[in-house]
């Protein structure tokens, strides 16, 4: 077999993981052909040049994120960017898009039900303890009907591709998912770097996302004409402040903080130099507990007093609705296949990571025999508490976990340890191209008669060798994502 030099150095795929770029036989996957051809013409110097150029664009445009730390000099960093785009074939994307819409529609129905009749709990499909132990269930939302019946206007569904080549949903984010500004910035940067490759591949455009977002916000406005939409940010110390500014600016709406708003007679106004101006829709990037000091955290200075009563009076729409967090809980995730079936009568299109419920005899047997290959999670705790990862445990710990499970079977679920797919990535310093683990955060909009999934999304890449954590706070970077 002819060994073709793919990049400036030998590119070796890893065993046991799915490589997005080449097959096991080292054959470039068809949708990467154009990219491979172009890249084979580049030298190490070219790669370094692309990397530098991208960095300069990011620096000049101030595309940053902040890491929470005590550093008095500030903690804003340039978002690491890898110039080799991740490409998703059209057919594959069509399925992903459908799956994401299905999932987020089901989550919306689920939230509607939880805050009204609770049929899914009464029918015993989802255990009631799981919902009521969640700190994110907001009783103040009970019986309230958000405009257009939408709770999760903006959802960020995280996908991975396992070693079997299939996509799996890793988690749902229906509170304030962030990252979309980097998708747009990455595209902008890469367009300047590889104009020829662009016109050859013609990836689906994403440039109209801010427009779609604004249209969605306007669709859920309580006012009928020319609604005033704003982006509510906790301020410049938030890790996603760049994104708040970016989205407000690109939608052409005001960026506000809690102190810029006030409530009078259950109506929200913003202070301007021309006097007060009514606000109809708030795309809030503040978590529930900080929205309104009168209702939630009285010490919070981020929110606006009276905001929740204005919302409940129907005079302003909050995007996303308060109380959505109950649906993106780890424990609820395990029930997503049932939730989709219950509300939509459909099988899930994108798979959940398989989940074993220890309350079921056959599942329990498997779990007890295979603790070392599984992740064990309690169903009634969120935020990663009480999770045991099988392959990191000692023999004694494994026995302890087994005992815990047997003592309270219904409390535990188990999932296989998933492996993330890999993608060629430029390694700064060594100036070579190696495979690194990636995931994909997708962005989905639901409005009144509006549904939209951003083609592609944010591909996050773990820049440290062997690291599975792709989060930017842990030294991860991102790639442009093309759907062709």
């Amino acid at each position, binding site marked *: 077999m002819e060994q073709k030099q793919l990049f400036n150095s030998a590119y070796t795929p890893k065993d046991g993981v799915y490589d997005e770029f080449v097959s096991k036989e080292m054959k470039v996957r068809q949708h990467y052909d154009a990219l491979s051809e172009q890249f084979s013409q580049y030298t190490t110097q070219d790669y370094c040049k692309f990397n530098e150029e991208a960095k300069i664009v990011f620096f000049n445009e101030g595309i940053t994120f902040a890491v929470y730390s005590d550093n008095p000099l500030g903690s804003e960093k340039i978002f690491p960017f890898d110039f080799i785009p991740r490409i998703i074939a059209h057919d594959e994307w069509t399925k992903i898009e459908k799956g994401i819409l299905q999932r987020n529609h089901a989550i919306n129905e689920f939230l509607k039900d939880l805050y009204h009749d609770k049929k899914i*709990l009464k029918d015993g499909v989802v255990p*009631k303890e799981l919902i009521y132990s969640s700190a994110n269930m907001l009783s103040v939302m009970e019986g309230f009907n958000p405009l257009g019946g939408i709770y999760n206007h903006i959802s960020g569904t995280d996908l991975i591709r396992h070693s079997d080549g299939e996509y799996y949903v890793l988690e749902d984010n229906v509170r304030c998912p962030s990252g979309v500004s980097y998708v747009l910035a990455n595209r902008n940067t890469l367009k300047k770097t590889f104009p020829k490759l662009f016109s050859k591949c013609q990836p689906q455009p994403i440039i109209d996302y801010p427009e779609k977002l604004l249209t969605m916000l306007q669709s859920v406005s309580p006012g009928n004409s020319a609604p005033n939409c704003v982006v509510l940010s906790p301020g410049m110390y938030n890790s996603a402040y760049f994104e708040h500014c970016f989205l407000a600016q690109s939608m052409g709406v005001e960026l506000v903080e809690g102190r810029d708003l006030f409530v009078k*007679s259950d109506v929200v106004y913003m202070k301007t130099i021309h006097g007060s101006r009514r606000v109809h829709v708030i795309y809030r990037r503040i978590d529930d507990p900080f929205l309104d000091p*009168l209702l939630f955290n*009285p010490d919070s200075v981020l929110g606006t007093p009276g905001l929740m009563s204005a919302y409940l009076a129907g005079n302003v729409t909050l995007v996303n609705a308060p109380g959505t967090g109950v649906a993106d809980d780890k424990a609820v995730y395990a029930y997503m296949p049932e939730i989709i079936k219950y509300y939509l009568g459909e099988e899930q299109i994108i798979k959940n990571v398989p989940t074993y419920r220890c309350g079921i005899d056959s599942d329990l047997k498997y779990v007890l025999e295979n603790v070392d290959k599984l992740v064990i999670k309690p169903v009634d705790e969120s935020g990663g508490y009480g999770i045991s990862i099988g392959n990191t445990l000692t023999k004694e710990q494994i026995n302890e976990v087994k005992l815990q499970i047997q003592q309270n079977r219904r409390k535990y679920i188990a999932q296989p340890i998933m492996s993330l797919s890999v993608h060629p990535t430029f390694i700064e310093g060594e100036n070579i191209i190696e495979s690194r683990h990636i995931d994909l955060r997708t962005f989905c909009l639901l409005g009144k008669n509006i549904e939209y999934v951003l083609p592609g999304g944010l591909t996050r890449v773990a820049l440290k060798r062997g690291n599975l954590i792709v989060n930017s706070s842990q030294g991860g970077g991102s790639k442009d994502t093309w759907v062709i």
Partner: protein
Amino acid sequence: MRQYQLEYTATNAYASPVWGAYLKFLIHPYAALGAQINSPVFSINVDGDWWISNARQKEVSEIYYKSTNKFNTLNIAYSVKIYVPDLNPFERLSLPVGQEINVLKSNEWIIDNYKFIHLTKSRPKAYLSPEESANFLWLNEGNLLDKIIHLRDQVHGSMEFITGVTTTSTLASEVIKLRQGVCQDFTHLFLGLLRNNGVAARYTSGYLHQSEAIRGASQLHAWVECHIPEMGWIGIDPTNKLLCDHNYVKICHGYDYDDCLPVSGVVNSSANQQSSEHQVHVQQIQ
């Protein structure tokens, strides 16, 4: 039909000027079935805007106030007239015991009432552990209301009504050791015990028409409402060992005291609140 004139006055003083305040008052009577609420008057000594909101719950009127001027002392005076239908709490409509137990055990009942049944350490004011509540006897037989009354009498009997030993932040787990307190302490203790026995119970605040030997009449009062199949939410006062009748004028209910604060809000000032006094007056109009 009874008619009452309700009056609430409060004075909040600050050591240095307050530049802005956004306050919420829960002092307006609950729009209960058959009640007529007339001519509310809200007055405050500092310039500002105020309005009534029913957004959170249509029966509850929250009065909001936003100051437009600086101040050191805030004087609030509120009055309202209310007609209350006569209520005989001894008219009982309980289901037969067996039927009642079936309702109480049903998934439907537990899910619909979960908000007021479940105990959580994240709301510690009315939280008691099963061990703490084991010292109080819960009857095995009889109707739910009888069991609740039996428990109420134990709470009343074990507690001493004394003002000044507890504050608004005292927890039920402290009250159960102290065995002293005022109406909200009696209520938190009773709530913790009820919830440990699976009863849907909620904290209720309101006005109490004064008669002799009734405690808690010059302040806002607190009692418990329990959800009983067929009967609905029944008011029970552990402080006065009574079932609530037309002398109890409810304002609102919640999980515990924190949901029923008469005054809450945000104040922009460099100083802490120096003093705060509340007065309540309930007068029956013949």
